[in-house]
């Protein structure tokens, strides 16, 4: 029983990482119908940002706290650049965007290899985060995973506040629901797109910072997560925060428990089968926007 609970906790923290990544994806996918394969490289950029900062700021704790906003800005800026250079030109061609951004992702990985070298690097975690908390009954919670969970929930909260309560959020939701109408109502959809891309990509950067606490930093670290994160978006329903939150945690726990009872590889296959089965029941994902549109 304790094993199951411990494993579930690990799963929840995996889910938290997936959630951080999927939040940005669901924003851009939902609003612009854009599949950004380079999203994984924004994670990588966030992780390397932490690495670089730790070299100049020796205190692991301070550098981690500084890295969060800086990684958000770095990854966000990369996202805006990508949107401005390529993605806005490919509007209405979502499948082509997928391939183009894959090309960008290849180049960014190589760039990372050229700058930081191909081997993985590590950052030191602050002491506080390397400890465990024992909550009794043989269950221990790793502080770094608790931190990630907290970070993910904070991001969800922040994003919800932005979307629900600010004028920017209203504009974003308007564009998601009806782009043409938003445009003729005087919303600069181009500017909203760019802002969304900034936030979404920035969240990937934050996810990258979180990942430095649980694993090494390498040029291909983003690709390991990107497909899973996309599956979260597909299952959760496009443009739906609620769906992404539930799906990320469910997939994380499912994956983690299956890994324990079988093997990593079997778990992957079972999760995929479960997703296809789920789509039989709800092909549009967990939550959908009901519209009268034909497609």
């Amino acid at each position: 029983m304790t094993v199951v609970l411990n494993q579930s906790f690990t799963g929840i923290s995996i889910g938290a990482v997936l959630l951080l990544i999927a939040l940005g994806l669901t924003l851009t996918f939902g609003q612009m119908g854009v599949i950004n394969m380079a999203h994984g490289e924004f994670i990588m950029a966030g992780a390397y940002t932490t690495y670089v900062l730790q070299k100049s700021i020796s205190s692991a704790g301070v550098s981690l706290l500084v890295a969060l906003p800086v990684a958000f800005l770095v990854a966000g800026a990369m996202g805006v650049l990508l949107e401005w250079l390529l993605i806005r030109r490919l509007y209405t061609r979502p499948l082509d965007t997928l391939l183009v951004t894959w090309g960008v992702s290849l180049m960014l990985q190589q760039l990372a290899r050229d700058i930081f070298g191909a081997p993985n690097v590590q950052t030191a975690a602050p002491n506080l985060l390397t400890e465990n908390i024992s909550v009794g009954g043989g269950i221990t919670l790793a502080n770094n995973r608790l931190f990630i969970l907290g970070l993910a929930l904070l991001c969800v909260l922040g994003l919800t506040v932005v979307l629900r309560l600010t004028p920017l959020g209203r504009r974003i939701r308007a564009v998601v629901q009806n782009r043409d109408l938003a445009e003729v109502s005087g919303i600069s959809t181009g500017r909203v797109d760019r802002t969304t891309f900034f936030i979404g990509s920035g969240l990937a950067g934050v996810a990258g910072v979180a990942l430095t606490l649980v694993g090494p930093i390498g040029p291909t670290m983003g690709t390991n997560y990107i497909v899973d994160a996309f599956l979260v978006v597909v299952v959760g329903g496009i443009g739906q925060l609620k769906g992404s939150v539930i799906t990320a945690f469910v997939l994380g726990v499912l994956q983690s428990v299956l890994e324990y009872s079988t093997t990593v590889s079997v778990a992957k296959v079972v999760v995929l089968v479960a997703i296809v089965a789920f789509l039989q029941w709800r092909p549009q994902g967990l939550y959908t926007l009901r519209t009268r549109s034909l497609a």
Partner: protein
Amino acid sequence: MSGEGLTVRDLRVTFDGFKAVDGVDLDIRPGDLRFLIGPNGAGKTTLVDAVTGLVKATGSVRFGDEELLGRPVHRIARLGIGRTFQTATVFEELTVLQNLDIAAGAGRGPLTMLRRRKSVPEAVTKALETTGLTDLRDRPAGVLAHGQKQWLEIGMLLVQDVKLLLLDEPVAGMSHDEREATGALLQRVSEDHTVVVIEHDMDFMRSFARSVTVLHAGQVLSEGTVAEVQADAKVQEVYLGRASEPEPIAASLPVPEEA
């Protein structure tokens, strides 16, 4: 003309609590040329969507003896019910001939499908003549003028061998000459088909309708001949907000695009 009529009983469609169609009864006899009119949001397109299986609905829609509700879209189409959309949707990269050939082909066996088209099916030739597109048959449909695309769509329904045509604003955006030509086409078609037209253009309706149903807020407001409907005080009120002479029922009130 004999054949199946369309019988709608207590049809209801709800979008997240909003009643788009709210208990509609409708009888369309075989051979009718029925116009469905009504203000924006009256539920005209949704009604057609429900009949053709595009949205879920409750109640009953019978075509002849067949209940349509609950069947998948392509099965309803195979029963002989065809429709067009507000935006002309033809296969732009294919030629006029290929468009019609595909429309004629549902139910072709695999062997026919895997072979190249050797001759033009008779139904396709006939439809080309009826719609006046014979000279354009090898053009890609994407280069056709707006009106021609609408005619091609109607032609596709003809070769599809439908018995009931549901046309969603077929003359929207057409020039005067195109409207007249379309009206004449509809009259020709209605000689051996049942036709239902959703329309905003009152002049067009007056010239060509055999019978009219007025929808308002998801319900049938009035039904009858053109003259009867025009004389109906309720209709005048809905359209103009006051009971008066119905003449200036403007044709092209802007309709929000359903994207």
